[in-house]
């Protein structure tokens, strides 16, 4: 006969301020099999947990219900708590009387009434809970890192440093990500390439790191501990093993196209590496523009290559990697300012984006580090920076703050002044967000030491007049409108997820928010985990992030993975399906329906020796979705923790 204890949490005033917790506890005693109830100020705190443990011991409880926050926050806390007093963790349930009740309802009586009902449901369910044994699954001690930007590189290196293998899949011909495009970096102004390049060389030479560049994820199956990853290596037309990176082919190739890496500020060849320090330093042929591959004419690169590395017959290739954990580190894209007709909608050549500016001031960029206007090649004397373009804009852009643009704009004013001593920079801003070590000081330096004039207000319109860009803005502090004739205008465009972020997430079962940034499991307590076990997040794919934050997050994700890899077996919740073989009629329905192909048919002999087919669930493949259950006509499949009995018990008490 189950003996249930009910523990009602005040959560300070979060719950008790609305819900009459004493009444809830008192009413709970009337529910079936409830033999004990109490309240406490903070159940999750150490003394709170002691209250539970003591009650379990003193009252011989074998089941508990904690009426508190959402089970997503402290479900595990209370499971662990009762485990220490010898109860199976699966004999606990939570009633969410905070997120689903006290926080969302206004009337105290209604809220109290509902809290009682929620406790009633939970006590009904817990009655039917059974002690489950955790599943021990073997761990493949290799990690997949999707994206070879600074975050991906850092994760891979940290995992390798702990002695495990890391496999980087990078869609571009080289690793490096956005950081490779930057000039100098805030807040220290060290050169991006100088700090990135050594890391790139390190991953390239580290024997524990495997890089699949110019590759993409086709498919991922399996779950934490053992994922199987299908990777498509795109045809490069240059043999990675033979190429020496001499660059002769690129030099001789006659075809020029816009350079993606230089954001269309310059051209590249049809056979090229994106930038000189590329890793691997092996060019790729762009099949859409190569004359040989499109027209069958040319073949120059093959002729000039002394290493015999060029191979026009190269094909896409599928490779399979087995890993135990995954890091998503796919980074970010930039918001397309074309949507801003008032800023020219892309029509004005001297209105560029912040990232284009990074290429312009980069010594290895298209102009060799000269800041010049695209329209006439002249050196600008007045540069206007506009912040929050596409950020904090619910009409044309994104509602959120992109977090890094205040800082990089300040940086760019400093760099501009260093390049052009008599330049005057103006920055239109709404708020300056410089929360970080030495960040505010950095912005201050831009203003005091480098003379950038900050103007609080948005710009309404840009238009061309007499070879200049007229900037029509507001100085809200002055209370008056201002008009600045600028030579160059730089838009700090919003940080948005990679174009393919959503498709990738759907492929691997990652959850993401409305913008397609990847969701952390908990915004405070699990910021580098995803809700899907075994998948971790690093860098700007989770939210706009600068380099220090991306690196910190990458190391944190790597540490989590190393923790996972420190054991031979992983103990996970046994939320899996099982088939009662005796009643299975072998109809095959479930086999077809299971999205994870976890069910297969086996032959069983009954007592009379007759053979018959029955379904069995492979627990290492089953994810516990429960889709198979309602489809089984003989109702012989069960799902741990969400058994038909348990759900019925809840439904029966509504």
């Amino acid at each position, binding site marked *: 006969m189950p003996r249930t204890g009910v523990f009602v949490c005040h959560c300070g005033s979060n719950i008790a301020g609305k819900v009459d917790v004493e009444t809830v506890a008192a009413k709970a005693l009337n529910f079936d099999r409830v033999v004990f109830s109490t309240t406490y100020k903070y159940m999750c705190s150490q003394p709170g947990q002691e209250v539970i443990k003591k009650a379990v011991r003193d009252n011989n409880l074998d089941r508990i219900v904690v009426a508190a926050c959402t089970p997503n926050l402290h479900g595990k806390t209370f499971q662990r708590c009762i485990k220490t007093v010898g109860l199976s963790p699966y004999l606990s349930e939570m009633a969410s009387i905070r997120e689903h009740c006290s926080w*969302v309802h206004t009337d105290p009586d209604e809220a109290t009434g509902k809290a009682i009902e929620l406790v009633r449901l939970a006590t009904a369910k817990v009655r039917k809970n059974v002690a489950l044994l955790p599943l021990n699954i073997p761990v493949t001690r290799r990690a997949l890192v999707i994206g070879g930007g600074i975050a991906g590189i850092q994760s891979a290196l940290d995992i390798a440093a702990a002695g495990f293998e890391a496999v980087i899949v990078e869609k571009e011909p080289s690793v490096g990500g956005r950081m490779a495009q930057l000039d100098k970096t805030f807040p220290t102004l060290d050169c991006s390439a100088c700090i990135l390049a050594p890391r790139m060389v390190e991953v390239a030479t580290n024997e524990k790191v495997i890089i699949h560049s110019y590759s993409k994820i086709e498919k991922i199956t399996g779950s934490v501990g053992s994922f199987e990853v299908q990777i498509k290596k795109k045809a490069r037309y240059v043999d990675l093993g033979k190429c020496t990176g001499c660059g002769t082919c690129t030099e001789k190739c006659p075809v020029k196209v816009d350079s993606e890496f230089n954001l269309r500020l310059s051209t590249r060849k049809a056979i090229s590496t994106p930038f000189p320090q590329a890793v691997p330093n092996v060019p790729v042929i762009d099949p859409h523009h190569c004359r040989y591959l499109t027209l069958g004419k040319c073949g120059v690169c093959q002729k000039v290559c002394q290493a015999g590395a060029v191979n026009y017959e190269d094909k896409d290739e599928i490779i399979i990697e087995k890993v135990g954990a995954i890091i998503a580190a796919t980074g970010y894209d930039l918001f397309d300012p074309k949507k801003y007709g008032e800023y020219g909608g892309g029509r004005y050549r001297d209105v560029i984006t912040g990232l284009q500016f990074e290429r312009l001031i980069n010594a290895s960029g298209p102009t060799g580090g000269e800041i010049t206007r695209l329209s006439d090649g002249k050196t600008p004397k007045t540069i206007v920076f506009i912040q929050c373009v596409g950020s904090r804009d619910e009409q044309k852009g994104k509602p959120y703050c992109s977090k890094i643009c205040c800082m990089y704009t300040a940086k760019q004013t400093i760099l501009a002044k260093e390049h052009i001593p008599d330049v005057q920079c103006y920055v239109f801003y709404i708020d300056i967000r410089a929360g970080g070590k030495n960040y505010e000081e950095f912005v201050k330096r831009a203003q005091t030491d480098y003379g950038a004039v900050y103007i609080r207000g948005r710009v309404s319109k840009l238009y061309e007049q007499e070879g200049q860009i007229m900037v029509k803005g507001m100085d809200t502090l002055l209370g008056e409108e201002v008009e600045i004739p600028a030579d160059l205008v730089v838009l700090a465009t919003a940080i948005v997820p990679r174009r393919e972020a959503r498709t990738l997430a759907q492929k691997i079962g990652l959850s993401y928010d409305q913008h397609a940034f990847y969701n952390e499991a908990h915004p405070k307590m699990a910021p580098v985990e995803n809700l899907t076990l075994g998948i971790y997040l690093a860098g700007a794919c989770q939210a706009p992030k600068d380099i220090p934050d991306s690196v910190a997050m990458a190391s944190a994700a790597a540490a989590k993975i190393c923790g996972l890899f420190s054991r031979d077996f992983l103990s996970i919740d046994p939320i899996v399906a099982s088939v009662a073989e005796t009643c299975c009629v072998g109809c095959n329905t479930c086999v077809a329906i299971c999205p994870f192909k976890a069910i297969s048919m086996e032959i069983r002999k009954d007592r009379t020796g007759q053979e018959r087919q029955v379904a069995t669930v492979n627990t290492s493949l089953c*994810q516990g979705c429960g889709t198979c259950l309602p489809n089984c006509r003989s109702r012989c499949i069960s799902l741990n923790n969400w058994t038909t009995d348990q759900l019925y018990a809840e439904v029966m008490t509504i």
Partner: protein
Amino acid sequence: MSEGFTPNLIGFFCQWCSYLGADLAGTNRLCYPANIKIIRIPCTGRIDPQFILRAFLNGADGVLVSGCHPGDCHYTAGNYFARRRMQVFKDLLNFMGFDQERLIMTWISASESKKLVKVVEQFNETITRMGPQKQLVLPTR
């Protein structure tokens, strides 16, 4: 419209999306009617029409099944199965002459707390207008 009628609403919410959306509604201190009780389920694919039938028999006035948007199912396809199953079940309810508007299925992601509030408010309005559900009630309740 019945005077002072507060419907008994049941939500079956997928743990990966809509249940988290409800958590977020809490975190954001949004506000919605108190007469809905949310039952956490692993995936809408787990929903057996029997649960819904049972809910109605036990006096539910409306049932709201909510899961991840098509294409976003944590288990890749559970919500597609659920959608098909729900449609068949609704047709059956309809055939039986049951007010099929009392059962709705929606997609609410973990970040759509505002949508959740809207859905619940609207559903509550609809069911309040329709009045108590008397077609499928067990005599003893």
